[in-house]
């Protein structure tokens, strides 16, 4: 019976072939490590956020007179409301954690390089949309941190040339963050995750065109690929189990560790808390904002600090295949960059003093410096590695790549049939 139904559908819609090509039979490099689990985890957390969010929205009220109390109502009266809210609040942090690891993996293994530039850029768009979604969601509980976070960040749009003040009022729908702001943030907070789902589809179509990278950094021959199912379904599920253990520890035992205490006080437009901090995932960028003494400069630096990742495919000029594993200097640079991120995160967290200001400014310079230096360092490293002597296979690979590139320039690429 089931067979006949599937047959009936296959006559009218490419169901079986789609499942076979893109899901179960999708050819996957056999050597993927656990760092390749994080894309799947990001997708999982996205589903989790949408599910918990929709059920929260059934009880939440987007009205400044009611929203703070409606969160209390969810926490106290709604059946398992506390669970939904904690899952959603912790889920936002989990989402950023997973995405940051996913990006670090891509940087480390050089997976942003040709032919995966479009994957890197759609990923960059996803990061921006995720940031916007989380920022707007954070206003919804209408606590002190919600209110002042939204006030400070909407105020940044004053840096828009000529019409800065009007832009801020337009964004808020009021002279201050108010009821109009809350309502529109809720509407957009509901919308954006679905735009994210659309962008994820584009991300995946690009993935299935260029195929997964792998720890060796070399595109494996077909014989080294294995079908996604059951090998990677099971690997992803195992990783998911580990992830869920950590996630559950946060949800059930320390849910408040990620919620600022000040956000349990209702928003008060007449009184700023003594110390406003953004959520942890914004701290490094916030530190860069604060390190520049001028408003416009700070806003530009902060925007650039997020967007600069998009330039990586152009900045990395090395032709050595493989990731940081085979590139000692790039590897060093990668770890120094992570360290710099941590320093910035710390500086963004503590109340500003003249000392942290200087540390923040140095760390900001290092942040941008490490990007600007990539073209020179990667080229010098390539020369050094070549002089030191590369294995014959690698040399052949580099020659083949540059040969292919020449050929592509001469006549436009025609994709081989059957490699969809």
């Amino acid at each position: 019976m089931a067979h006949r139904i599937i047959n009936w559908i296959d006559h009218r819609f490419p169901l079986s072939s789609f499942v076979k090509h893109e899901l179960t039979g999708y050819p996957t490099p056999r050597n993927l490590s656990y760092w390749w689990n994080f894309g799947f985890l990001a997708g999982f957390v996205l589903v989790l956020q949408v599910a918990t969010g929709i059920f929260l929205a059934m009880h939440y009220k987007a009205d400044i007179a009611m929203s703070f109390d409606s969160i209390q109502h969810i926490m106290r009266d709604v059946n398992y409301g506390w669970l939904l809210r904690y899952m959603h609040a912790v889920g936002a942090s989990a989402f950023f954690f997973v995405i940051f690891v996913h990006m670090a993996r891509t940087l480390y293994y050089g997976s942003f390089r040709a032919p995966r530039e479009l994957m890197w850029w759609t990923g960059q768009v996803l990061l921006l949309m995720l940031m916007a979604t989380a920022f707007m969601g954070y206003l919804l509980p209408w606590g002190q941190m919600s209110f002042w976070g939204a006030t400070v960040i909407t105020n940044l749009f004053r840096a828009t040339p000529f019409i800065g003040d009007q832009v801020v009022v337009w964004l808020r729908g009021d002279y201050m963050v108010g009821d109009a702001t809350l309502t529109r943030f809720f509407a957009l907070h509901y919308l954006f995750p679905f735009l994210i789902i659309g962008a994820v589809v584009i991300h995946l179509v690009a993935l299935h065109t260029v195929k997964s990278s792998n720890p060796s950094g070399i595109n494996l021959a077909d014989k080294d690929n294995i079908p996604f199912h059951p090998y990677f379904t099971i690997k992803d599920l195992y990783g998911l189990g580990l992830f869920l253990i950590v996630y559950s520890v946060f949800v059930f035992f320390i849910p408040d560790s990620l919620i600022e205490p000040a956000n349990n006080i209702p928003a008060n437009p007449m009184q700023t808390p003594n110390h406003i901090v953004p959520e942890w995932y914004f701290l490094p960028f916030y530190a860069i904002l604060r390190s520049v003494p001028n408003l416009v400069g700070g806003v530009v630096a902060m925007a650039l600090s997020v967007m600069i990742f998009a330039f990586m495919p152009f900045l990395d000029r090395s032709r050595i295949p493989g990731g940081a594993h085979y590139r000692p200097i790039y590897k060093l640079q990668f770890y120094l960059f992570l360290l710099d991120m941590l320093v910035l995160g710390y500086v963004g967290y503590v109340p500003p003093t003249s000392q942290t200001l200087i540390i923040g400014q140095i760390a900001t310079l290092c942040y941008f410096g490490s990007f600007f230096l990539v073209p020179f360092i990667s080229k010098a490293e390539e020369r050094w590695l070549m002089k030191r002597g590369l294995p014959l296979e690698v040399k052949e690979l580099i020659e083949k790549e540059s040969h292919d590139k020449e050929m592509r320039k001469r006549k436009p690429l025609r994709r081989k049939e059957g490699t969809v």
Partner: protein
Amino acid sequence: MGNETLSDGDRRDFLIKLTSVVGGAGVAATCVPFVASMNPSSDVLAKAETEVDLTDIPAGGMRTVAWQGKPVFILRRTPEEIQAAQSSNGIIDPEPDSKRVQKPEWLVVIGVCTHMGCVPNKEGPGWTCHCHGSQYDDSGRVVRGPAPHNLEVPPYHFVAENKIVIGKA
């Protein structure tokens, strides 16, 4: 219509361009109401004026009132405070005290830090903003950054000896 007119390439090109321009203008015009709907609505604009009775503010005391949802500080300055405010012009954004008050006794400023919009706290003489450490004097002038400008003076006028309306000069 003759066959030549139908296959006239220039005519086709022109019509395609014209249609695109008219269609584009239509789309742009349709966006206007959507964008405008996000600007403050009439009821938000209606709270543009606030009347404040000043009688119960003691000398040296401060009151915070809401105007357009923003905090406005009303400070009744003592003769010493007035003298201190008049003796300097501020440092970062110089402006004489006389330009910032209508009656020296009453300082009316918007309590929104010109850096990123936090509400400064009244501390000692003047205000301190805890967000990034800006300081303002008893004339609302910035004396320590990162704030770039003095606290803004809202439009207001005295309707009686002890009553002001904020929102209209």
